[in-house]
């Protein structure tokens, strides 16, 4: 995670939300489970403790109701996505073409095509997955 933030800090041109408090994270987790999504992975929770979502050059990692940026809301994005019917998945971010999702069944971070829902890439670690979607 430290290495990820070192990489992210290299790009000044990004919107980065302030860290979220634990209560908000718990509420969002509950809501995700209610909506039949997988719960957030441990690595991503750590990420949320450091920053509440990032958007950079058309790509975004979602946060929990980030200020002034409804489209970056994790719960909202999961409700709206065509992948909402898959209980093993939770969407964590997106770019123009793909979603970044966590597959709780396979314990993998997946890059999934927005339209045909094909899994394009899989990563076991969060760092390369986030860097892939943000194109850094």
């Amino acid at each position, binding site marked *: 995670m430290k290495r990820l933030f070192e990489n992210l800090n290299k790009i000044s041109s990004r919107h980065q939300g302030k860290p979220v408090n634990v209560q908000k994270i718990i509420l969002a987790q509950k809501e995700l489970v209610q909506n039949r999504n997988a719960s957030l992975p441990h690595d991503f929770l750590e990420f949320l403790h450091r920053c509440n979502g990032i958007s950079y050059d058309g790509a975004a990692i979602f946060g929990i109701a980030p200020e002034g940026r409804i489209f970056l809301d994790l719960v909202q994005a999961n409700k*709206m996505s*065509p992948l909402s019917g898959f209980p093993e998945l939770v969407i964590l971010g997106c770019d123009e*073409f793909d979603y970044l999702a966590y597959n709780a069944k396979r314990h993998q971070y997946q890059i999934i095509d927005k339209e045909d829902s094909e899994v394009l890439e899989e990563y076991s670690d969060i760092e390369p997955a986030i860097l892939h979607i943000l194109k850094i």
Partner: protein
Amino acid sequence: MVKRRVEKLDGAFPDFVNEADLSLDQILDTISASNLPLPEPEQNSQDEKINRFEDFYQNKISETCDDILMLEKNAATIVQADIENLYKGSFVREFAARYHMDENDAREKLRLDLAGQLQSWGMKCINKRHYALPREIKHIIRMDFYGTVDKIDEKKDGRSSKKLSDTYRRRSPEKTAGTKPADYNLGSSPVWIVFRQFRSFRLLERNLPELLIKEGVSPQDYKRLNAYDLSQVLYNHYITKSKPDAERKERANLFLGAKYRFVKAFIRRNKTALRRIMDMRGYDHRYTETLIKHMEQYGVTGGFDVIEKNYTQEMLEELKKRKLLSPEIKVGDPITDDQIARIKAAGFIGTILARDESGNPITGPELNVHHKVAVQDCGEKTNFAEVNQFKNLCLIIEPYHFFAHSLDRTGMANGAEYYVSRIEIGEDVAFYGGFNKLFQIEYDFGQSRTGLYNRNALDAFRNSKRLLDTGDEYWQPDKMPRRQKKAAKKLKQKQALAEKNTQNTNNAVPPVPINRPPEKDEEIIEKPVRTKEKAAQRRDKISRKKDEYMRLRKNLIEKRKQYLTLRAAKKSAIKTISRFEDERKLEKLIQYTMKSQGRKR
């Protein structure tokens, strides 16, 4: 839970009005606010000033703008609430119970309501036939859009859809020993034919044979490569150029992507209009100027720091304490780029950020590049480059981008045909900053009408084995000057003759496949073969004619020289004569005056 969620979302949209004020009556009240009767003239002096004739229209206009913005924000909030309800299970269930319908029907009803709502605001939801694109073509479109190529790492832990072919895996430098770039017929690869539809890849085409030789891909193997193989060939070459010392070597820069080119092209033509919209939407002008600068320079639309132009006392105190500035710098001095870079490297960029009245760093809207016709729906196209053309792209502010994708639906089967639901944004809209047309910029990039990509012309030109000097998407071959045409024709004739002669000497005729129509050159070969003597006679005749022509040409040049010397002599003679005549005239005049003076005396 729901209540808390609403609270959260209200916080997420602070500049929009509360949901309690969203009723139509309220909205209408906000519109009619500007139509209220003007106050009586005997009110206080400030009001008198407002109602003065010269200030009247200005006030009226600004009030109307405020109304429009308020209406815009209200509409956005309504749409946002509708989207939220559509995707909220509890709301759909409650709705279904209230109207005694199935949950699916209730969702469809809500969906239709939302579509109607969006349509009234100019975002038309349409159902259209879906033509799926093959994965490899999508890969090429993405590369063109971003201008980068990803490394295909087959050894990484997770699975990947990008698979290198066995042909590419079996490559070796021995296979290309002695192979020349001319041995590759680039048009023989069906994959490269798609690549070369994109202007940016066409520009890279010249280097491709050399790269293939370097990689060890023979001309025969080249035809069997897939899109991932070719992108890996490009990656291997361009990674060394783009990031020689980088830690992460996962992505190589090929060229400026279509996305960035579009942003640059857009801002070059619509700077003033964008300034107007940003101003109307109430964004800080410092943000707008920084945005425009970044759009012009890098083609990016967001996520940059807005830096103050001049130093303030607080900034100087902080930065001088950290020894990041020299002591000579005073309050009001401009902040230079070098200084910004130094401060940023030291991690104190926050000190020089431009701030609003409440002391928060200035921010602006999230701007994204949106494909009007989605990449996935472009399967019926023959020219896939059209997907990333400027006419199919548009800049869109969030949350409107979010709205534009709110009704996306794929895979709705109707027998064997597949349909998708999409929200359509106007064909000529290049910037979408709100439902109201005032927040939109229409610009016809003109590619569809003025300079259509003429594939036939281009193919014909390519078949004539002439290299492309201009890699423009819509480029058509220029008319050749007559002299050049003549020379080319002569050269062609000479080459044909030389070929015929060598073939005659070798006495070998290449076989022509039966199922293929013979080419021009081959037709000539099929004609009755002349004897050596006839060829020699013809050569003599040509050389004689050439000598005659050269003699005549020499004579002509000499004659021209003579003519030129004569003309020069004549010109100088005329000059001397005229001067002489002038002198004579002057002399006569002097004599005449002297005579007349003598007579007077």
